[in-house]
């Protein structure tokens, strides 16, 4: 791999910019979980303050036992107060993650809702462009990956701002020199961590592209394994995978070395600060120091500040540990945002001010449809009256399906208007008035009955049965041990194409819509099934307006009106 500096730089910058967008979005999501975040922070703060009190009590106890040699009986109240502090702190240790969890849970719930709404906005043609497995991964795993950012990272970030300052305020009046030690080393730690962080960023920058290319290597070759095998390269690839893994390890370690250095620095400074405090108070106790508050320091005061010294750096160390929660959330939000950011394909650009008037049931007025550069339909004018039996004919790819999608409100025309009963058509409206059976009807997990009653789950058992009989579902369900209650699903496993079609027809029949739209209803059937189905269709939808897209001559024959779609126009 030959990568130039500029390759890396551009790729890194692109990712940096994206990361920023994701970070802003994450911050914005925190708003709805404010209450729980603050509760979690409160638990953390109370715990931190308790540590201060505990240190004071402990320092006193040791002084009393060791120096003043007081009997334990006298000290019982202090021991009891220690116990109370421990209980309160345990409660805080419990409450902190529990409140944090609620914050994360609320955000996750809301993001899931946003995704569901977004799917609706995008419409079926856009959804079909994605693998549903990977979309489902976004709504489940990726959304879950946000949890720790809100439950751990954000509260900890706030604690870093509060607790060290609290300790400083307490220590200052007792021992200003120790306070000054904290005051100097604290910002120094942050400064050096930032410096090392920059070093890490530049190390990452130098190897970013190479690393990101290598990190997906294994999955890439795994998914292409059958192709590799087809070309007889599977065994050769094995050694490549090893080489790549070693390269990846070396490059990652180069970056990690610097990242670890940053936490080593944190540790180093906190150790230095603790050591400085220890030496200062220690020498003070030995009367070796003749300046500052250490001159007459007691063991109690010395232990108190010494116990607080590591606590001063604790929140920062914890934040460093939680830092990868942020990285994980950023990665997940990238995938989530990729969906949420997408402009809905065909939102209503309701520019029609004057109320259109039409006496037709369905009317297409100067309708055109373009996808990017490709024009599918040009200037379609078409009207359909109640009760008509229409066959839409034409080659596949001629635009029949697009025409139907427009009629169903799944897509919006690029120009022109589609009217349903004289009003500009919306998806909701057409869902109420049109029953549609697509080319490949989807069978949901559940019983056959549930699948028939999709549009009207509250339909009575008799009506469902009636629809099942009318569409010929009962002809095969009677052979199943559980009849209409038989469980089906996963692409209608166990059902043949013809059986699926019948369930779809029963679905449409139960809906009692005025308009019935069928898209290639006979495509998946052999001749005998086809004849049966046509008889059923004829029977079921005698009264309704029927629109069938087809290129089956048998179907065309039984329809009274033929509309030919070819090269984006109709005739």
């Amino acid at each position, binding site marked *: 791999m030959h990568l130039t500096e500029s390759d890396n730089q551009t790729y890194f910058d692109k990712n940096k910019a994206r990361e920023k967008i994701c970070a802003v979005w994450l911050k914005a999501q925190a708003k709805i979980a404010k209450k729980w975040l603050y509760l979690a922070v409160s638990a953390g703060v109370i715990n931190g303050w308790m540590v201060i009190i505990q240190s004071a009590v402990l320092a006193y106890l*040791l002084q009393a*036992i060791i120096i003043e040699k007081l009997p334990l009986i006298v000290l019982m109240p202090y*021991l009891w107060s220690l116990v109370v502090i*421990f209980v309160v702190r345990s409660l805080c*240790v419990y409450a902190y993650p529990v409140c944090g969890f609620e914050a994360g*849970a609320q955000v996750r*719930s809301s993001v*899931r809702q946003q995704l569901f709404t977004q799917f*609706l906005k995008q419409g*079926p043609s856009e959804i*079909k462009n994605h693998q*549903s497995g990977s*979309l489902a*991964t976004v709504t*489940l795993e990726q959304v879950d990956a946000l949890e720790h950012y809100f439950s751990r990272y954000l509260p900890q970030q706030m604690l870093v701002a509060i607790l060290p300052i609290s300790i400083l305020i307490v220590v200052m009046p007792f021992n200003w020199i120790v306070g000054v030690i904290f005051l100097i080393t604290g910002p120094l730690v942050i400064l050096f961590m930032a410096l090392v962080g920059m070093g890490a960023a530049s190390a990452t920058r130098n190897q970013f592209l190479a690393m*990101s*290319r290598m990190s*997906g*290597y294994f*999955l*890439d*070759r*795994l*998914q*292409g*394994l059958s192709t590799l*095998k*087809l*070309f*007889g390269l599977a065994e050769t690839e*094995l050694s490549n995978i090893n080489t790549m*893994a*070693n390269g990846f*390890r070396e490059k990652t*370690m180069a970056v*990690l*070395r610097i990242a*670890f250095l940053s936490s*080593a620095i944190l540790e180093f400074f906190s*150790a*230095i600060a*603790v050591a400085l405090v*220890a030496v200062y108070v*220690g*020498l003070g*106790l*030995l*009367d070796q120091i003749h300046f500052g508050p250490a001159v007459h320091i*007691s063991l109690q005061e*010395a*232990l108190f500040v*010494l116990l607080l010294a590591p606590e001063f750096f604790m929140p920062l160390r914890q934040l460093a540990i939680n830092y990868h929660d942020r990285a994980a959330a950023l990665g997940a939000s990238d995938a989530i945002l990729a969906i949420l950011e997408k402009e809905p394909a065909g939102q209503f650009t309701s520019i029609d001010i004057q109320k259109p008037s039409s006496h037709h049931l369905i009317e297409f007025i100067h309708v055109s449809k373009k996808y990017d550069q490709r024009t599918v339909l040009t200037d379609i004018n078409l009207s359909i009256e109640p009760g008509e039996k229409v066959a839409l004919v034409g080659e*596949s790819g001629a635009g029949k399906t697009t025409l139907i999608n427009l009629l169903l409100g799944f897509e919006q025309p690029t120009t022109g208007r589609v009217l349903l009963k004289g009003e500009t058509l919306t998806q909701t409206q057409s869902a*109420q008035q049109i029953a549609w059976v697509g080319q490949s009807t*989807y069978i949901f*997990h559940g019983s056959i009955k549930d699948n028939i009653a*999709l549009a009207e789950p509250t339909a009575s058992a008799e009506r469902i049965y009636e629809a099942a009989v009318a569409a010929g579902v009962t002809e095969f369900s009677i052979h199943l041990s559980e009849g209409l209650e038989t469980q089906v*699903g996963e692409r209608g496993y166990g059902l043949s194409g013809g059986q699926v079609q019948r369930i779809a027809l029963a*679905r449409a029949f139960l*809906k009692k819509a005025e308009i019935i739209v069928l898209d290639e209803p006979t495509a998946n059937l052999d001749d005998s099934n086809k004849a049966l189905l046509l008889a059923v269709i004829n029977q079921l939808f005698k009264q309704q307006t029927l629109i069938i897209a087809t290129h089956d001559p048998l179907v065309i024959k039984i329809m009274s009106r033929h509309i030919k779609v070819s090269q984006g126009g109709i005739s």
Partner: protein
Amino acid sequence: MMRDCWFFLKLFKPYTMWLVSGIILSLITSMAAITLLSLSGWFITASAMAGLLSIDGNVLAFNFMLPAAQIRALAIMRTLGRYAERLVTHEATFRVLAQIRSWFFQQLIPLVPGRLALMRSGDLLSRMTADIDALDALYLRLVAPVFVAILGVTAVTIVLATYAPIISIANGLILLVAAVYVPWLFNRLGNEGAERITVLMANYKIRQVDTLQGFADLLANQAYERYSVFLQQFSDRMIHTQRQNNCLTGISSAITFLLSQISFTVVLILAGLLYTENQLTGSEVALVVFCVLASFELVTPLPQALQMLAKTQKSAQRIRQVAKLKPTITEPQQILLLPQSYDLQLSDVCFRYSDQQDWVLKNINVQIPLGTKLAIVGASGSGKTTLLHLIMHYFDPEIGQVALAGYSLSQYGSEPLMTCFGVLSQRSQLFATTIKENLLIAKPDATAKELDAAIKAAGLEKFISYLPEGLNTWVGESGVKVSGGEARRIALARLYLKDAPILILDEPTEGLDSETERDVFQALSVFATKKTIIMVTHRAAGLSLVDKVYRMEQGVLRDYHL
């Protein structure tokens, strides 16, 4: 279950040195931290007591230089130790992961493509890579902390015993409860919830996929809202279960914390009593108390480690399940050399994916001598692609046989057999590497001239001329995005380079615009004149390429007349 983890631990063997050094460094660091705190407590108290004495007028007899130096040394040791420990443990983890990856890849080779074609492979494989990554926890979060805890606690207990056996025993017992009983108890309590969440997640995923795949049907039936409300409720149920699990974790860490504080208080009281009885000096009291306070850091990672264990076990189990699958075909004992002629013959071929399922192919009889050009049309799910898979020997037919030059396919080795077939399908697998490397997969030793010819034949010159780096342009995730049409052309160029006698075309132009479709068929008609073509399609275009068309109807192959 534990057996699965154990199995992977055995794979770690070549890296024992790394793993052991990681644990030793980690132990040194922890011990340095504990000693540091104990020594500091001792030092301060000793100083205070020496200071008191000097106020009384005695000569200062306390040598503070040595312990102060020791404290500095320990502080540096802790910092450096932590740094070195992280480097070594991560290095070890990466090495181990690389080992597991190549092991897994090797296990998978015989399963591809037959066995894996039966699974939703894309999803499964990304799951697998995540599972393998999850195994890094095995060492980093489980093995290392457990070893460090055992050794560290033992050391602390022994050292404490030299000062005050009773304190050592008290602290040791409480540590034992915190390190063994609490993690064990909460692992048991949490088991049900952990299992429930896995089930809920799997079910949620099924519903979610259902909702997305049946999206149009839901919209048209005004049922999307109902379904999304249902999903939201499902999500709430998952979150509720996670909440319960999280509460348990919270309780367990609160209890561990409380135990550490109880131990501390008990030790404080005991030390106070021993002090009044002159069994401990004042500075030793501080040493012991601080040592106990620090020793709990050894066991804090354990409850989490045990929770991790359940997850890691699941991952290990899943990986092993896949690795344990049997290939769909077995290599013959005596491998037949590839024949000179490439005539295919299918006689009475019947096939189904399992005994419980319906027949996918019913009694197929067809002769395909070299140079035959045939197409199979039919609805999706009628068995067309399965037939292609049988011809390429992904599976053996249940009844009948597929023969090449008169011998059953099962008598040839699967790898040499693959050299007979060139495949173009609706999924053109591009690898994340350069365009050139992607082409060379078909013929690793191809000359520049051959590459040029292939590029020309596939109509790729224009696309490549637009790229500043030409053939060396990287494609995929972190490179140039390649459109579906361009990917298909690259696959076509591979087909050209491989120059196999039998071309398998599975919906070769599905999803392409009409211009690319025309180009693909044009190219095929030129270079495939002497080759066998077996094409599956449901489009009319391309049928001009073939001499004979069959129609597949629910597993039955029939003649078809246009």
